[in-house]
């Protein structure tokens, strides 16, 4: 049971918020233009992620800036015994937005 989609129809931030609000435990695998990402959600919290060479929160900050690409969502088969983070999606998205605003100032 998977579902697929395109970031032309839902943004990466929108997809993360939807799945987290529903408190899902899933794996998102995504492919963009020359980029790849894998994000793990457990009961609505983001517990891990990679985006190209970046891991953890930095991977999420990169992932949410994608403007195009495709994604696939699968159930999280098994929760990792040690997760690299357990962060509410809002915290990560707000930090990403803060960085974007402050970067624009520089």
């Amino acid at each position, binding site marked *: 049971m998977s579902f697929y989609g395109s970031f032309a129809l839902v943004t990466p931030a929108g997809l993360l918020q939807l799945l987290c609000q529903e408190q899902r435990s899933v794996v998102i695998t995504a492919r963009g233009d020359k980029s790849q990402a894998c994000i793990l959600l457990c009961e609505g919290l983001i517990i891990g992620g990679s985006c190209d060479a970046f891991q953890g929160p930095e991977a999420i900050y990169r992932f949410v800036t994608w403007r195009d690409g495709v994604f696939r969502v699968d159930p999280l088969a098994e929760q990792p015994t040690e997760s690299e983070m357990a962060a509410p999606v809002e915290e990560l998205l707000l*930090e990403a937005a803060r960085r974007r*605003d402050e970067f624009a100032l520089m």
Partner: protein
Amino acid sequence: MFINWGLGELNLKIVYYGPALSGKTTNLQYIHARTPPHMRGRLISLKTQQERTLLFDFLQLEMGKVHNLKPKFKLYTVPGQVYYAASRKLILQGTDGVVFVVDSQAGRLADNQESWYTMEQHLVELGHDLSTFPIIVQYNKRDMPHVLSVSELKRQLAVDGRPQFEAAAARGAGVFDTLKAAMNAVIGQVKTAIR
């Protein structure tokens, strides 16, 4: 508004908006500190220039259920500085109501007006009808010297017809009155929308 069928919850979002240092964060810190732990989530705090951006979940049991769903509010502040436009717009996405925190000090009038204007602009861009969207006005810092009269602030900001409260959030005065009015306005709007 987000309906979580699995948990039987109606997730609603109220955003505290206003110019930098008007007291948005002080309002949320006061509410969080005086809410029993079983009724609130963790206070998430992000360090932005001059002040902090806060958010937390707030379970309101007194209001009863809406269409058999428990209302659960998520309270947010926005960073007030002008250049945090993308952050403010992200926070306003999906909001069900706004508390606009006015800094009553005479020297902040232009900041209040600019912030009010950007709030309206963002809400319109997000597709809200300003004539029906719940916006509660809080005149904060009434305990400070050199404040404008409430009638002058009303006139300058053109907020007639909105629920309005005077507050001194640092002492807690008016904080819960404002919050209750915002929650009632949001619930009222939801009931109208799903009638």
